């Protein structure tokens, strides 16, 4: 894949990344309601891509399992093909050899797409500060939610998905009581 340079800072995501066609229409009653409806639709059925790398993938499978059941939150199916999925859960440590593969899988996903960096290794290389592990997946692809843990419990992954849903709907990620 040729020379691939990593960035020192992560990509910008979301609104900061630039205007979408809806944003370009400006804020008025019609587009704000349409915005809400579309975002509600997008957030309610996020289908992740099957992208388990290492140990976090096992806890991701646990989140699919009967006790935690991620499909309650809309992620009914994990799609094998990135072209049919919305969410890339990078679950596990990212080795140097895997970098072009992750980039290609991310590029193959159609917009709108989101990324959860699951686990300490995807967020910041975890305990592996060495030659073989890329020091965070956000040097390769933009990340929306960072989920710490080694590995994070399936409930933590569900929490990340819920926060992502709030982010998609434009709500604050942490809702405090009034």
């Amino acid at each position: 894949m040729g020379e691939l340079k990593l960035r020192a800072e992560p990509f910008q995501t979301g609104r900061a990344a630039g205007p979408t066609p809806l944003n370009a229409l400006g804020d008025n009653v019609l587009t704000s309601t349409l915005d809400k409806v579309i975002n509600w639709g997008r957030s309610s059925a996020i289908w992740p891509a099957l992208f388990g790398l290492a140990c976090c993938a096992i806890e991701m499978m646990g989140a699919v399992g009967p006790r935690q059941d991620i499909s309650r939150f809309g992620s009914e199916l994990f799609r094998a093909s990135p072209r049919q999925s919305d969410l890339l859960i990078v679950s596990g440590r990212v080795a140097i050899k895997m970098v072009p593969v992750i980039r290609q899988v991310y590029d193959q996903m159609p917009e709108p797409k989101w990324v959860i960096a699951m686990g300490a290794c995807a967020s910041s290389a975890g305990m592996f500060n060495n030659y073989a592990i890329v020091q965070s997946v956000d040097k390769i692809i933009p990340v929306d939610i960072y989920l710490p843990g080694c590995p994070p419990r399936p409930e933590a992954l569900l929490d990340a998905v819920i926060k992502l849903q709030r982010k998609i709907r434009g709500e604050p990620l942490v809702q405090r009581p009034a």
Partner: protein
Amino acid sequence: MSVNPTGTLVQRIGERFKTALQESSDFRGDLSVVIEPGTLVDVARYLKVEEGFDYLLHATAVDWPARDPRFTAVWEVRSLANKTRIRLKTTAAMPDPHVPSLTSVWPAANWHERETWDLFGITFDGHPDLRRILMPPSWEGFPLRKDYVSFGEPVIFSDQKLEGLEPDAIRG
């Protein structure tokens, strides 16, 4: 074969191969022998065919930069029938370390020797397919050598400044 062959196994190897057997040791119940590289394949074949060491456990190397020769290549084999184990070692010197490949004796050594080439840079003469296995094919350098610096990124604490740091570049 005698009930406890390992005590006399070294003697048998010594009688058969004379000076090729450079050292032997029995540390914590693990028998190891150091063989000169030229005779290694013959010793290996003898061990497999006549002493029954049919099962290769692993093959690797150890880097001793302060020593010359620098590398010690290690193969560990087991005899499933006799429940014994022996560690075969040989040495390789810089520059351009070479040892004979034991894939002709134990085909299972194939990937283990490829990995040792990948991580240490020791060439196995006679290996059918010596190429990188764990690192990307265009990687330069041999990570497990002691002079290969391994950190991914220097750790920055929140009260330190970020300027003057180069972004990491991926090689290959």
